[in-house]
């Protein structure tokens, strides 16, 4: 592992990019904030805590999932991946670096949701620590899905649409912005294919908005390991 490279890639490609291009901030905030607004209006404020908690999950997941376009662009248009394949950088360093970059893209949104959550009095030390852990697992699993998808794309034009669909389907359909017990259990298990589902269910439990479903913990961890391993082996690094 070359953690120095991973850190520098995240620092430059994540933090510096956000600092120099504020449009990233607006783009990453637009979808979760719109949903927060809709939930607030429809539920007349009663489900707003779900939407705030879900906002963290939705924000991180949608940024990571829509980054499939970015990863494909780096590989196909900039040829950045080829540059690093022919060096000592290994695919895990590269993937983790980009993953952390996407987490940086989410930072302004996380700060904003934290402010709203603070006003709504939803935070405690335990819930904050648990949320940090859930978001860390979520960014790894959803970025891994992005890498798998971006790697199979031959023309960069195709990836933007796929990334947008993935982002909507995998973050809005799961119980991110509504209580998980509103849907039948069987649907919950089906939706658990998306790592957003266990993340959202656990977060609702951690913040005391719904009973904690402990079986979602191993599901979340297993999905992170499986998706990362799949990305590690399915992502085209050296091509055949």
């Amino acid at each position: 592992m070359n953690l120095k490279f991973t850190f520098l890639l995240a620092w430059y490609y994540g933090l510096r990019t956000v600092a120099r291009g504020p449009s990233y901030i607006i783009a990453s905030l637009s979808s979760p904030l719109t949903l927060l607004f809709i939930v607030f209006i429809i539920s007349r404020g009663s489900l707003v805590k779900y939407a705030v908690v879900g906002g963290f999950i939705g924000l991180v997941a949608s940024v990571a999932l829509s980054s499939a376009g970015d990863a494909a662009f780096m590989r196909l248009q900039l040829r950045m991946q080829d540059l690093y394949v022919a060096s000592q950088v290994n695919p895990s360093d590269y993937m983790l670096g980009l993953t952390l970059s996407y987490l940086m893209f989410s930072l302004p949104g996380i700060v904003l949701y934290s402010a709203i959550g603070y006003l709504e009095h939803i935070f405690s030390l335990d819930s904050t620590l648990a949320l940090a852990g859930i978001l860390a697992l979520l960014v790894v699993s959803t970025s891994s899905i992005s890498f798998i998808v971006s790697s199979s794309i031959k023309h960069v034009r195709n990836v933007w649409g796929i990334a947008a669909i993935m982002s909507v389907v995998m973050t809005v359909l799961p119980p991110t912005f509504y209580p998980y017990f509103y849907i039948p259990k069987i649907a919950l298990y089906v939706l658990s294919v998306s790592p957003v589902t266990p993340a959202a269910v656990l977060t609702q439990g951690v913040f005391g908005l719904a009973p904690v479903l402990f079986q979602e913990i191993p599901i979340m961890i297993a999905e992170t390991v499986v998706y990362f391993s799949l990305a590690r082996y399915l992502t085209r690094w050296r091509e055949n």
Partner: protein
Amino acid sequence: MIVTEQLSKRYSGGNYALRELTITASRKVTSIIGRNGAGKTTLIRILSTQLLPSGGRATVEGFDVVSEAHEIRKRIVSIPQEAAPIGILTAFEQVKMYLVGRGYSFKEAGESANKALDQLELRESKNEPTDTLSGGMKRKMFVAMALAANADVVFLDEPTTGLDPLSRLEVWSAIRQIDSRVILTTHYMEEAEQLSDEVILIERGQSLEQGTPSELVSRFSGKVRVETAERCDGCIHVGNISIMYVDRTRADEYIDRGYTVRPATLEDIFISRGVEIES
């Protein structure tokens, strides 16, 4: 030294990009020339361990490209064809990041990046986002990576494609400052003549010619190239132009008839051998 022995690459569609290519490149700067689709990029990608071959063998500085890729990667820099910088980042940041990826400490990488960028006259612009730089400056940023990395072998895949003449001269000047062995691909014959100690002409994945630029041009010793828009027997036809090679002593005769006459260059090896293999 770069050695390939019956190196082949067949893509999934069944097309061969390389067909039992056998070459040895041992000089300081070797140019691989050939038309679009000749197999130049495939060769560079295999040698720089980005792509696996389908058959045959290749070694870079004695290491096998398949089984010892890790050793090769420590010793090479490979700048892909049409590589483009991340526009929002500066040249300094990108060179530094590349060097850290190669195992440099942050401090060493910063110092080496600064030194290489200054050496290539990017001192003024190295801290500007690269999307504000000219095409030539962007290419020089990649050459700076090669310069700073101090690798044994540098692969440059069409380093000046799409650049204006002035930018091309700037990139040539930058390439000349690389101390390592350089393998570059190009379809600009002037570039190959200017930069190379050795030229390898490949066409349809096979090696057709190899030698120093002067050795290759000497195949046309005593001859000049005559071009006309008229069709003529025994000429090479490229589009609407007919090309023939005649004794220099007859040059005036063709000039008087209104033909274009020019001295033979490396381009003529390219044209004549390319047409031979086509026919």
